[in-house]
């Protein structure tokens, strides 16, 4: 993975997740951050911090990104969510607009 194709998502605890830009763009919020012409720091450095999202949830979110890309390419599987994560996951998903 080249540097230019990736973004880094940083959770509340500081854990960093490096994923493809294409996967991150599934989230409308991240897409706006990275593509808007405002000269945002996120766009420049390719890093986005989420001080309110924990690592577990952020990990699940990244899994969802890749699952979503797979789904739209035709491979339709099921995305399993552990019940204990759902509430926080829902709120994070709402924030990320995904």
């Amino acid at each position, binding site marked *: 993975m080249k540097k230019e194709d990736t973004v880094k998502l940083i959770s509340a605890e500081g854990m960093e997740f490096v994923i493809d830009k294409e996967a991150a763009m599934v989230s409308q919020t991240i897409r706006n951050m990275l593509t808007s012409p405002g000269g945002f720091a996120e766009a420049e450095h390719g890093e986005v911090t989420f001080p309110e999202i924990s690592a577990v949830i952020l990990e699940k979110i990244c899994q969802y990104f890749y699952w979503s890309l797979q789904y739209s390419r*035709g491979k339709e599987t099921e995305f399993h*969510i552990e*019940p204990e994560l*759902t509430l926080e*996951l829902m709120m994070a*998903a*709402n924030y*990320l607009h995904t």
Partner: protein
Amino acid sequence: MPVLRSRDIPPAPPKPPKSRSNVDPPATPTQGREQPLPAARLSSPHSLPPYPKTAGSVSGSAPSSLRRSLRLSSKGSSNAGDQVGLPEVEKCIESRNGDVSKKQKLSVDVDGGFESGGSRVLSLRSGEKVIKGSPLGDGDDGGGGGCDEVVESNKKGKSIVESEYIEKSKRNNEKESVDRKRRFSREEKGKGKLVVESDLESKHENLVGGSVPDVELPAEEVKSPDEQPSKRSNGRTNGGRMERFRDTARRNASRFAYFNAQEEEEEEDNNNLSMEAEREIPSVEEQIEEKVVEDWPGPFSTAMKIIRDRAANLNVRQGSSSSGQAPSVQIKWVPQKGKGKDGSKRLPPSLLDLSLRVLVDNADAIVSLDHVPDAMRHKLCRMLCDRRQMNTNLLDLLLSGSPTEIRLKECSWLTEDKFTECFEKCDTSNLTVLQLDYCGQCLADYNIPSTLARSPTSLLALTTLSLTGAYRLSDAGLSVLVSSAPALRSVNLSQCSYLTHGAIEILASSLASVLLELFIDDCQSIDAMLMLPSLKKLEHLEVLSVAGLESVTDKFIKEFISARGAGIKELILSGCGKLTDSSLKIIAETCSILRALDIGNIPKLTDNSFGYLASGCRSLESLKLCRNAFSDDAIAAFLEMSGEILKELALNNVGKVGHNTALSLARRSKNLVSLDLSWCRNLTDEAMGLIVDSCLSLRVLKLFGCTQITDVFLYGHSNANVEIIGLKLSPLLVHIKGPVESPLQYSSVSSLI
């Protein structure tokens, strides 16, 4: 010998010459030509009452004169007096203008020739105006075969008619052929044969207003083949004759449009097909080929004309010669396979939906809803209520802390005890939105003081209150509630059948200056007229819903709208069956900032309503119809005028919706987001495809009951964003998304503080 239009041709015309000589008006300098009567006179299969007075004209023209006299007398012509029939007509006209006599003579002659053309005779009966043709110099082709002069028996505009008549006849002298051909055209909203019509249109251009058809036979011959089939199709019954009368009337109507400057005749009832009904659209100047009886402001009538001409022109191009068949506007749309939306490809569900589903499945395991934003809470509650899995535990969770918004779309599971238990200990001081729909079982007068209205300040922050279905709530209970909630902006008391007009008085007394929205659907004990004084006191009312209240009448609307209409933004009147077009007129004139209107299930509304709406409510974004009797043309014309800003349109079960509407939608509705065409069975796959591919903002299309739509449309349209609901057997609730729930629909709460 002209080919007669009528099928009925008696063997021998009864002494035509006699009639002619008899009808010679004294002052009429004849043009030296007598209209030769056709050899075969249209025998009237219809018996004519004997006309005792016209001794002279008894013979050949007796029938025609008889008929004419009947018509004239029915018109109540002042000149009718004793004389009936042709002489009378001449008199009338003569009295107007000396010149006319000349024409009269011609007409008289023509009348003589009327017998030949059954249609002419018949048209007399129908009260259509007899345009005095100018057979001057026309080839004597054997009697006025095609004289389509119909004396208009327009009671209202008799004088105008007469003067027009005169002028027309003057003008007609040069344009006989054109006139004649025009006469033969049958155009009725695209019906009939317009092939000939198109030829004539070019000739018509130099004609301003109408032109009197002349009696030239050649033209008639040209026409007659066209005419005959249609004539034949009309049948010989009286009904068929009426049909022809109307058609002729419609044809001739345009001739009189020229005289709008002198007087404008307007008729209220568009559907009045009585024979003496010939009115003119004020603004129309060019030829109109159909009967125009609508009372519309200028732009709308022009739009209507455009719609109708569009259909007419298309028919002409197609060369359709249908008889009695309503030709449909052709829609060209080719499904683009492989482009755009691929039927099998689906978007991945959003993480939000996925997690919400899992959450709802495991709702019992939810421990706390702290920090969950209100929007999430509402989504959760909505799904739980839909699945009927809502319970008191969750309600406790919702009410814990100091909630700001509570929305329960369905509280029928909640018992009175549990309700009291939960709300007794709830801190409602920060509550801004409280929605307890279908709370009849749990809410009564006696438990309000202990739960919701514990103190006069318990609901200080409440702006939106919805207690639908509270059938045990009386005026007194409402009074207690309202006294604790002085800041209410939106109140929904639908289906609270115990409330009377006293409830509105209570609202008006304490909330007169703040209440913005009031919903009292189906509150059957509230009498509209009794609540009117209180209703008028609500100074800033923006939204009013009185759906289903039978006591809502035109009078109510008139008085209320006159008082408060200027500030109304949304009006829901569905099911108020007593309303008529006059209410719409007032609404259109007064409610200039109206944004949403629901007039479903009001059967008495006619196309005139659309005329008013198009000219009046320029900000209309949402229009909902259901089971209305509007015509395709009216809706299409309305869309042409106001379709640009429309965002939501429901044409549920408006059966006449057809291709004109589809075309107008495709051309105008660029901002349309939601469209409901359920039960509109006249729309084909092509029409749907055109709509969907052209309305690029469209997101939701409802097609319940449209069994005529096939996969050709479903998989052939290229709009990837639209969601089509109602065609396949899929769970309904999947598609029904909740409305965007904000506390107030047209204002933001902060703006009120």
